[in-house]
């Protein structure tokens, strides 16, 4: 038997989109391997209905453990327990910060091989082969597991959530004893939103700014350009500048921010790190302005401008205003 255990992250009564994708992918792979995909949820009084809803995405069983939410080590305890008691060959995680932490901790606990940033998985000779882009996505490496358990941590948005299953998953409650390390961290506040609430997910055109803007005031150039495009445009930002306090969190694109796919994504002063790329690469048209000709963003933009954004953005704003009022 080759069952797959999939971590399902949940918050405020909803399952994370990347976890749903992982459950769907786990179900597809388990079917090919001749096993089952089971989901595992950890939290304070997780409703059976929520856990059971993963049946629609292909999980035949949903394991539920009581434990603190939002921290990795209690989940490592729960998953290690489930794997020791059950019959699992693989553990699968959707993209996101906690998946990285839990998957790595589980690899250490169970002496398992682990591959992260996985964008594809295939079956060969009854085993899974993980595909991981490397060297700034210029190549894809293929990795097999030699350990009893293989751990797959996917990249953000690697797997699509598909409602393929029939009915609810069987919910099974498991008792887990927390490890000493899991009791040494306590969540004080979770999911705090900082800065103004802006809506970037509904925008058709996004003007996104990064560290290359040079200073917080650089965002004024982005706002003016977005304004020139009209009502369907908004301003977005990278993690680096949000963490630096230049722009509100609600506007953040990427690994720990939002995923967007607008008609036009105009990146100003953004280098194009993988963590940012995963949140915007499905945009229909990508235009990048950066003074560094070697910036990775030029490798996946449709139009790249090597130049000084302080010179280009104001003139572009004026030209678009003129064009739109013509």
């Amino acid at each position, binding site marked *: 038997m080759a069952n797959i255990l999939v971590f399902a992250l949940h*918050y405020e009564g909803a399952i*994370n989109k990347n976890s749903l994708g992982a459950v769907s992918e786990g179900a597809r792979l388990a079917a090919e391997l001749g096993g089952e995909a089971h989901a595992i949820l950890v939290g304070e009084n997780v409703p059976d209905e929520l856990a059971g809803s993963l049946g629609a995405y292909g999980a035949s069983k949903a394991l539920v453990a009581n434990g603190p939410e*939002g*921290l990795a*080590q209690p989940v*490592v305890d729960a998953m290690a327990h489930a794997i020791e008691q059950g019959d699992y060959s693989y553990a699968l995680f959707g993209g*996101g*910060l906690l998946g990285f*932490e839990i998957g*790595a*901790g589980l*690899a250490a606990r169970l*002496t398992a*091989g*682990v591959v*992260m940033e996985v964008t594809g998985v295939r079956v060969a000779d009854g085993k899974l082969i993980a595909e991981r882009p490397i*060297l700034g996505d210029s190549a*894809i*490496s*293929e*990795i*097999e*597991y*030699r*350990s009893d358990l*293989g751990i797959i941590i996917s990249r953000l948005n690697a797997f699509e959530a598909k409602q393929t299953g029939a009915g609810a998953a069987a919910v099974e409650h498991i008792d887990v004893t927390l490890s*000493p*390390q899991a009791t*040494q*961290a*306590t*969540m*004080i506040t*979770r*999911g*705090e*939103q900082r800065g103004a609430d802006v809506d970037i997910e509904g925008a058709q055109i996004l003007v996104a700014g990064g560290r290359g803007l040079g200073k917080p005031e650089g965002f004024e150039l982005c706002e003016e350009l977005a304004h020139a*495009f009209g009502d369907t445009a908004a301003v977005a930002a990278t993690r680096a500048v*949000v*963490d630096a306090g230049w722009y509100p*969190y609600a506007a953040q694109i990427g690994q*720990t921010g939002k995923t967007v796919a607008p*008609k*036009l994504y105009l990146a100003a002063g953004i280098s194009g790190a993988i963590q940012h790329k995963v949140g915007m690469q499905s945009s229909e*048209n990508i*235009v990048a302005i950066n003074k560094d000709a070697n910036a990775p963003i*030029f490798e*996946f*933009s449709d*139009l*790249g*401008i*090597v*130049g000084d954004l302080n*010179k*280009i953005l104001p*003139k*572009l704003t004026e030209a*678009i205003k003129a*064009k739109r009022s013509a």
Partner: protein
Amino acid sequence: MKICVLVKEVPDAAVEKRIDPSTGRMDRGGEKNLNPYDTHAIEAAMQIREGGTDVEDIVAVTMGPESAVRALHKAVSLGADRSVHLCDASLAGSDVAATGYALAKALEREQPDLVLLGQQSDDGECYTIGAVVAEHLSMPSLTQVIKMDVADGALRCERQAEYGYDTVQVNLPAVISVGDAINEPRYPSLKAIMGAKKKPLETLGAADAQIDASKVGGDNSGAHWTGVKPPPQKPPGEIIEDEDTNETVEKIVTWLAERKLI
């Protein structure tokens, strides 16, 4: 308080990286430097000391070939008091899980109150080594921390997670990986650079750290490289070098208008 900072030697960012087709491992030849993300971890240790907490020892710890000594010298020039170099042919090719195990064994000898590391390495792009090390040391752990205060034997940490900013209290001893937004690392003084080679440096073999040889090295890693293939090809985009900005802007506007984006 004793702080150990995990550091790593990585290929210089300006040098093109490649995979050795015969082994599937990163070709780690060529120019090397201290992983830039690690400088934030050293700076974080320095700021804890300068912030009034009694930090008697800041130790830079690395695992790597002989050349990795340079990364340790850089770490010491940035403020570490001494360094430990885990260097053994049997460790070569270790995957993340095996590397984390070996580093944890080296750290056990030091008994730190706090282990700091950077959010990722510039080459392998793994965000995970901290969680592996923490598990082996049975310590609590948090990654991508962008604010950290020490009080009463515990850390109050902030980070961005899936749903916004989280604030987490973590009791010491702990393993914390810091995000690059946590601080602006200082530049080493000329004096510190000159003096770095005179600071104590201990070189450990695998046996010195009581590392179980059956758990490390490429042959004992659970994740095994089998091949490499090119990514799906996307036609290369158009590139404009901005020389005359008016002309550049005109080209952009035409490009956008052709796609009905204006």
